[in-house]
């Protein structure tokens, strides 16, 4: 019994510091979202800020925009990432630079990715200049406004640039570590290469792809810097909206901000639950075939 508890006891000091900061922040945020903000004399518990949030058209627009950005970027990233992983897997002779190149965006910080997206896609950016010099557009202003646009093209570009290699890296690692002979067994049983992909490789990587999807969905849903740097004035993504509301000098506005944050937290907890489900699916197969 003691041996079982020993690691937890030894970790207690650091866990206590981390969890107290995290839990107290969460509890305080929750209390404030319920209108309890004693510093400025608000002591009544109420759900009115949640009601206000859900009645606020701006919040609903932001929620919709955040879900749209997260969903489109995550779905596109997992599909493109899985295909990229498969093409790397097929090209068994690639070594060195090709193997390294696709991983590079993963280690680049998001703020740098935002800068890259801005430099590439802004009307004064590299893409518009190239098209202008090639004579495809008459003026740089003819280039579509992909940064700060309402469809979030700049945000999506930055996310995809970061996330596709991330998905490819994770899925490729799964396929590479999977026993090669499973593909051979499928071929031997009469499957062609396409069938091997659809009936063996993809289903085996599916739990990983699903959990990767949830990770990047949760990240892009809660991420702040890229939508802040590349997003439109309106609608804003939820984290940007929450930040702007938080920096409002009127402290009576704080419960409204905290209600937004609590909704973000709830959605993140739901994604965590989904992630656990996906993880259970992975252990269901328990890849005995990986060697």
């Amino acid at each position, binding site marked *: 019994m003691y041996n079982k508890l020993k690691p937890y006891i030894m970790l207690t000091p650091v866990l206590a510091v981390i969890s107290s900061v995290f839990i107290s922040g969460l509890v305080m945020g929750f209390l404030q979202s319920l209108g309890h903000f004693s510093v400025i004399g608000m002591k009544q518990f109420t759900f009115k800020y949640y009601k206000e949030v859900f009645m606020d058209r701006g919040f609903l627009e932001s929620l919709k925009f955040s879900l749209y950005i997260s969903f489109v970027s995550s779905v596109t990233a997992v599909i493109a990432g899985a295909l990229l992983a498969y093409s790397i897997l097929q090209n068994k002779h690639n070594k060195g630079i090709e193997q390294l190149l696709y991983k590079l965006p993963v280690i680049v910080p998001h703020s740098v990715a935002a800068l890259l997206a801005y430099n590439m896609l802004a009307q004064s950016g590299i893409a518009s200049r190239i098209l202008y010099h090639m004579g495809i557009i008459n003026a740089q202003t003819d280039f579509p406004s992909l940064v700060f646009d309402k469809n979030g093209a700049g945000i999506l570009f930055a996310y995809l640039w970061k996330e596709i290699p991330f998905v490819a890296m994770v899925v490729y690692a799964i396929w590479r570590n999977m*026993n090669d*002979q499973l593909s*051979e067994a499928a*071929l*031997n049983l009469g*499957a062609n290469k396409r069938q091997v992909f659809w*009936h063996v490789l993809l289903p*085996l990587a599916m739990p990983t792809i699903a959990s990767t999807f949830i990770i990047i969905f949760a990240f892009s849903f809660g991420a702040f810097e890229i939508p802040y740097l590349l997003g439109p004035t309106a609608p804003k993504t939820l984290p940007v909206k929450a930040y702007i509301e938080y920096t409002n000098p009127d402290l009576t506005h704080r419960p409204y901000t905290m209600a937004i944050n609590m909704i973000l937290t709830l959605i993140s907890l739901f994604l965590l639950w989904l992630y656990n489900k996906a993880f259970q699916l992975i252990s269901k*197969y328990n890849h005995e*075939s990986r060697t």
Partner: protein
Amino acid sequence: MSQIELRNICKKFENKRILHHVNLLVQEGEMISLLGPSGCGKTTTLKIIAGLMEPDAGDILFNDTSILNIPVEKRGAIIVFQDYLLFPHLTVEENIEFGLKMAKVKKSKRREKVREMIDLVQLEGHEKKYPKELSGGQKQRVAIARALAIEPKVLLLDEPFSNLDTRLREIMREFICDIQRKFKITMILVTHDKEEALMTSSKIAVMLDGEIKQFGTPKEIYERPVSSLVADFFGEKNYVDGEIKEGIFYSIMGSFQTGLHKNGRVRAMIRPEEIEITPKGNIAGIIKNKTYAGEKIYYIIDCNGKRLKCITNGKTFYNIGEKINVYINFDNIVFFER
């Protein structure tokens, strides 16, 4: 079912010779063993037959027709892999129907075939289980059912019993032999276990260093090996150097009449079980060592300065240092030229 012929198959990996002019003829409906130590090229041979690898040279014929240009998925030479390689995300019945599904066989027919295979391999009640929920023997049965479901032209078994315990190995060995007899399917069994090869196959191809050194019936291979390399693969032997002149074998142990009519320097191969300790023996010896192994006793006997290994049935005991006589029938001894 097909007759399989390998003609001068060669294969190299990174300049390392794996197969060197392998020739083999397996008759339709025959079960043969490819016997050899690990790394001798057995699995490579199977993969080349199945189409998972291409030979550098040579040809493979099924019923006298070259199949080198037929891709793996259409070749019909199915391997039952050593690690079973069941698809972990599919249930037992989904694994069995995999090949039929890939061939786009109608669902009703697939179901029927799966049912038939489940009955054949006696896995009723396990249809919905995933591979990780099965024992080694059950996995083996699923792998066999999965291969048989698509009615292969030839079944290639890659060390199928190596992951099973002794008792299960015997059961599965018998099971595979039953299937072979029932379906008259052409089978090649790859193994490094001499007993397995001797007990299951109508013929054995002994493979060493990427070459087939001898191909024949178990009796031929065991009793008349063509070289000491082949002989050694079937267990420890005694080798006595000497010379034959006019049918008499002259050696350090003495001179003995043989049935041979040739002259020259030879090496006699004497199996430990061919040495009989008896008062009527033709060679005098002294027991130098004794190892008790239950039903058998292993002795080391010094016969005029030549130490011979001998196995007895354990009914009579001899002590170390005891003087005895041994009888060797040199008419039955194999002589290799030196």
